[in-house]
């Protein structure tokens, strides 16, 4: 689903964010990216979502070389990715329902279909009852769940999340991560950047460890005996 071939990214400031990075994540796999702050986690996700272009090397997402995606094709590319942000980035001037419906509105989904899918997504994150509320009226954990509902509502094959639990306490963080794990279990590829090592240990998933832009470890959890 995601493949990096010798990818390097140097920002115009001269900072080498990523250096000769190569890895592959299979469809339906759930993986974490970790490392100290500034190790290149966010840059890696930005290359996947085409918020940045690599300086060298090739990024392939969903069988498509991103170098071939032109500027005009970027929105279409991003519609195939559910994105979750650390600060959830909900739009505070509209209701929970409208926030979750946004990707469908953008994609041009019919109204009845939109209502159905929004409710299904809200149900999945356990906040169906709050659809009319303003995001401001929700707790931080609930806001992040709404952010997740927005990411999954269009049923993208890939979900990427940048420090989705950065602002949450350990208990809530675990709940959120388990939510992501559920999507992984139904065939969605999930890639999460996080520096919460304790949490990653509990999740027992694949972990890519970055250090100063280089991949220093690619931990695969031991295969559980079925």
């Amino acid at each position, binding site marked *: 689903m995601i*493949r990096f071939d010798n990818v390097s990214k140097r920002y115009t400031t001269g900072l080498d964010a990523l250096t000769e990075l190569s890895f592959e994540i299979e469809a339906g796999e759930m993986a974490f990216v970790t490392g100290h702050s500034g190790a290149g986690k966010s840059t890696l996700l930005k290359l996947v979502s085409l918020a940045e272009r690599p300086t060298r090397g090739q990024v392939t997402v*969903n069988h498509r070389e991103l170098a071939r995606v032109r500027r005009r094709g970027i*929105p279409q590319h*991003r519609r195939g990715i559910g994105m979750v942000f650390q600060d959830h980035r909900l739009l505070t001037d509209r209701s929970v329902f409208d926030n979750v419906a*946004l990707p469908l*509105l*953008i*994609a041009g*989904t*019919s109204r009845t279909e939109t209502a159905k899918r929004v409710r299904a997504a809200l149900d999945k994150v356990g906040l169906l009852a709050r659809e009319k509320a303003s995001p401001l009226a929700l707790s931080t954990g609930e806001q992040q769940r709404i952010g997740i509902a927005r990411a999954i509502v269009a049923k993208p094959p890939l979900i990427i999340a940048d420090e989705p639990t950065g602002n949450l306490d350990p208990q809530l963080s675990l709940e959120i991560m388990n939510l992501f794990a559920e999507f992984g279990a139904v065939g969605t590829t999930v890639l999460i950047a996080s520096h919460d090592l304790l949490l990653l240990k509990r999740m027992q998933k694949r972990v890519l460890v970055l250090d100063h832009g280089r991949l220093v470890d690619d931990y695969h959890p031991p295969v559980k005996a079925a």
Partner: protein
Amino acid sequence: MSPQATPNRAPPAPKKGAEPRGPRAPLGERLAAWRDQHFYGLFSSLGRLAARPWSTGLTVLVLGFALALPLLFWLVFDNARELSGGLREAREVTAFLKPGLDARSAEACADELRRRADVAAVLLRTPEQGLAEFRQLSGFGEALDALQGNPLPSVLVVTPREATDVDEPPLVAALRADTRVDLVQYDAAWRRKLSGILHFGERVVAVVAALLALATLLVIGNTVRMDIQARSAEISVMQMIGASNGFVRRPFLYAGLWYGLLGAAFALLIVVAVELALAEPIGRLVDSYAHRFALHGIGLDAVAALVGASVLLGWCGAWIVTARHLAAGRPA
């Protein structure tokens, strides 16, 4: 990590399952979605304007004045042109004969003139006709009755064969030289000046209208630009979750359209108010012209032109600033 494992997998089958996401939906559904997106842009932008009545109101006031000014200039100019139209046509030469001249001599004088090559027609107005006309137009009927004799001279109204721009054509010179003629009235120079003034006025109206149209464009553009800045976080979220430039731009374009529409409505209000305020004194002025000229207000075509131009300016202003913002906010 198997770098060579994937290249020749099945060709891109990007859609998994039969989800109607993307361009595969039936035409009717896509049209409905397109309509929904436009309604969303139309009404979300209107709601946003309504949510900030003060700043929206101020912008609309500025736009209204900027649009009303050229319209008022144009109205004044248009009426002035109409008024002058009648005068411009009048290229006759009027010759007042000496008061003592009898009817027969006057007739002879007219006949002489009719024989000239550069004269198309000569109309003789006897003192009696002149008096009757004066009585009718001036309202001095009773005062005239008090007069013992008729003080008016015979008048020859001579229509030249061709209009000429010469200040003193030979015909006029001949009339002036004629001893039977008391006074020659010929206003070519004055009419040429008037024509020049009107031409100048036309140009002034055009220039003022162009400048104020530019101002309208800038006001709307700047307002939309501030709106964009206030919502840049929202725009970046929309872009991150796959909104196309068109989707991001649409609400702002509609905002520009609303500004244009509201500005035009306010401008019309101003124009109508000015018309009402000036109706009474202008009415008196028009009456003094003895109905040779009727004042006209703003017509339907002018209203349509105003609204059309204003909406177009709003849309263009918004388009320019959103294009700038979108170009700045995207990686290559």
